[in-house]
Each structure stands twice: as structure tokens, then as C-alpha cells.
């Protein structure tokens, strides 16, 4: 009896079925061209939500900046952590700089020459008389200098840094974490409201300390007819800010513009998508139509009030 059992095995890696995680047991994998899909020169590898992903190289001079545990790091301008070095508001009103200098000089001293030259054997009419009187009264030398200046220039306004959190929320309540997009320079990656578009679309922007000014780079100004409102969390409800000044005109103005409001005394932190920050939200309160959806590029919170 002769029995031959021959089972065809694989000879190429391409034939191998990938069906499970694999513990490589400390063995090395070398000479890899890439770990994450579509890597380019300068990319680094970061663990994403579930797999390794590529983080493209940042602009020249940017530094890799942490967004905290459980969040993706991003490339930010060097010094982006300025708030951690100066965790205080900076305001300088130098009212004491007024200086008055009075220079008064009176030079009225008379210069007098009263000399007589005579030769002892000279007749009287030969006596040379030099009796000239020279008198100088220099009235014009009185000088009054009043140097007065007032340095009341505020110092340190608009020291801003990128926001710590950004979240879009549709009218249906679907929230999307756009923090990384708000902190980088990639254009038009913020879905500003109204994004559905509809009433009750919202956009949240948060920072670790209270702020009363927000700078936002609107990459694409929206077109249409709607109105937004800025609100904050007072511990029990979202309420409108006082003296809202929205230079973005409800995100219809492209470019870098500011939003101002009075600092709410009862503003407290709340948690949006796991981020506990001082949040403002821009909420669409009326909507008629939209022909162009607004898109944002980057947002900064002003550190100085």
C-alpha cells in the first residue's frame, strides 16, 4: 500500500490570507517602505483611532505639539504654547508716563567794558577814552521747554493661540471633532454653521481659559440668508453673550476676522466630545437659504482681554 497525500502550500506572501492580528514575538520587520497608506517624505507615523496613520510634515519651522492624551498631535507654530509660559492676562496702561520738563534759562548778564587808557604825559585831549559800554541783555535766551507725552498704549492685546477644541454639530445632533482641523493651516476643513444647512446647526470653539475674543480664518465665506448667535454655557444652559460683535457676519466674510463679546461672569467649563473647556458656540437661529456653505481654515482664542 502506498499513499501519497500532497497538499499544495503557498509560496508567495501574496497568497497568504491576512485574517488576524499577529504578535510578531519580538522579531523584526525591516526595510519597510511604508506603514500607513500613501506615506510621503517627511511623514511620521501616529496611532489613530484604530490603526497607524500618517501625519504629513508640517510647514517649515513648525513643531510637533501634543493635544493631550487620547488625541492626535499636530504641527503648530513654535511658541504655540505661549499661554503656558504666561498664564495671565496682560494689560498695561502706563498712565504715569506723563513727563513735563521745564527748562528756563535767563541770560541777562550785562557785559560792560569801561576802560580808560591814558599816557601820563599826554595832554588831556590825547587821552584815549575807551568808555564804550557794551551791554547785552539776552532776553531771547529765556527758553521754556514743555515736553509732555502720554504713553497709554495698551500692551499685549490680541496675543492669541489656536483653540483647544472645535466641534461641529448638525441640527440633528451629530457632532464631529474638528479640533485638529481648527489648529492646523489646512484650508476649508471646518464645517461652519449652518452646515446642514438648517436652524439649530452649531459650531463649538473651546479654550482652556476664558476668552472674550475669537479670531477665525474663514476660508470660504458663505452665501445665503441666515443668522447666527454666539452663546456660552453658564452651568445650566446655553445663553447668548452680551454685546456680540461678529465681524465674520455670520461666516459670510472670508479672511481672518474677529468675534467679540463681553466676558460672562458666570461662564463655566463644560464637556463637549470629551473635551472639558470654556466653550462658546455659534448657533444658527434663523435660516432662509444658502448658495455657498461657509468653511473655516483655522481659529484662535485671544489670551488678553
Amino acid at each position: 500500500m502506498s499513499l501519497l497525500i500532497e497538499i499544495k502550500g503557498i509560496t508567495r506572501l501574496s497568497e497568504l490570507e491576512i485574517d488576524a492580528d499577529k504578535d510578531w514575538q519580538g522579531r523584526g520587520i525591516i526595510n519597510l517602505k511604508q506603514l500607513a497608506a500613501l506615506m510621503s517624505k517627511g511623514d511620521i507615523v501616529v496611532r489613530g483611532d484604530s490603526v497607524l496613520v500618517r501625519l504629513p510634515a508640517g510647514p517649515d519651522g513648525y513643531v510637533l505639539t501634543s493635544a493631550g492624551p487620547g488625541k492626535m498631535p499636530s504641527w503648530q507654530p513654535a511658541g504655540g504654547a505661549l499661554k503656558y509660559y504666561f498664564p495671565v492676562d496682560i494689560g498695561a496702561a502706563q498712565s504715569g508716563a506723563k513727563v513735563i520738563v521745564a527748562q528756563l534759562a535767563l541770560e541777562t548778564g550785562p557785559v560792560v567794558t569801561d576802560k580808560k587808557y591814558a599816557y601820563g604825559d599826554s595832554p588831556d585831549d590825547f587821552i584815549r577814552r575807551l568808555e564804550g559800554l557794551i551791554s547785552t541783555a539776552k532776553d531771547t535766551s529765556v527758553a521754556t521747554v514743555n515736553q509732555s507725552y502720554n504713553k497709554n498704549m495698551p500692551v499685549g492685546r490680541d496675543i492669541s493661540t489656536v483653540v483647544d477644541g472645535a466641534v461641529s454639530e448638525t441640527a440633528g445632533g451629530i457632532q464631529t471633532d474638528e479640533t485638529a482641523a481648527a489648529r492646523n493651516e489646512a484650508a476649508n476643513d471646518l464645517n461652519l454653521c449652518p452646515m446642514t444647512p438648517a436652524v439649530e446647526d452649531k459650531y463649538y470653539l473651546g479654550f482652556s481659559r476664558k476668552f472674550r475674543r475669537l479670531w477665525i480664518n474663514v476660508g470660504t465665506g458663505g452665501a445665503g440668508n441666515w443668522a447666527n448667535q454666539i452663546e456660552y454655557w453658564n452651568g445650566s444652559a446655553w445663553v447668548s453673550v452680551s454685546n456680540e460683535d461678529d465681524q465674520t457676519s455670520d461666516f459670510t466674510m472670508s479672511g481672518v476676522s474677529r468675534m467679540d463679546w463681553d466676558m460672562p461672569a458666570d461662564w463655566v467649563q463644560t464637556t463637549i466630545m470629551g473635551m472639558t473647556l470654556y466653550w462658546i458656540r455659534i448657533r444658527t437661529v434663523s435660516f432662509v437659504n444658502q448658495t455657498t456653505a461657509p468653511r473655516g481654515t483655522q481659529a484662535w482664542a485671544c489670551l488678553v482681554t
Partner: protein
Amino acid sequence: MGILHGTSSCILVRPKPVFKLSELKIDADKDWRGFGITSVKEVASGMAKGDIVFFNGAVLERLVPGTIGTMLTTHDFGNDPTWSL
């Protein structure tokens, strides 16, 4: 080849081939010859979101995110990078 030869009563058996990665014995370093591996979940053990990878002189090691706002800082050649202000 692992083939047993017999005269009258003989069973010839080849080693069991593998068809799944889970069955593959990892017994050596592997040169991937420039081919890519994508959608890798982790290269260092226990990686979580935001971790980055650096070489510690022996193997790839995970570096967990620093506190918010810290920046990746080098410490000269031959030393591990850290997150610092």
C-alpha cells in the same frame, strides 16, 4: 522535503502548509524588499490614539502623547525624544 519513502507500506506526508497569517510561525526577521504594509494597527505593543513611534536603540517603542500644548523635543543624538514645554 520531509517526504518519507517506503517500500511496501508507506505514507508520504508533506509538512502542513499554512493558508492564514494566524497559522504562520514567525521564526525569523523578514525583509519586505520595499513592499508596503498598510493598515497596521501598531508596531509597538499597547499603542493608543496619539502615540507616535521612535527607535530606542533596540526596537520601535511607543511614545504616548504629552500634556496638551507640549512639544516634541529632542535631546541630542542617541537619546529618546520627549514631550516638553
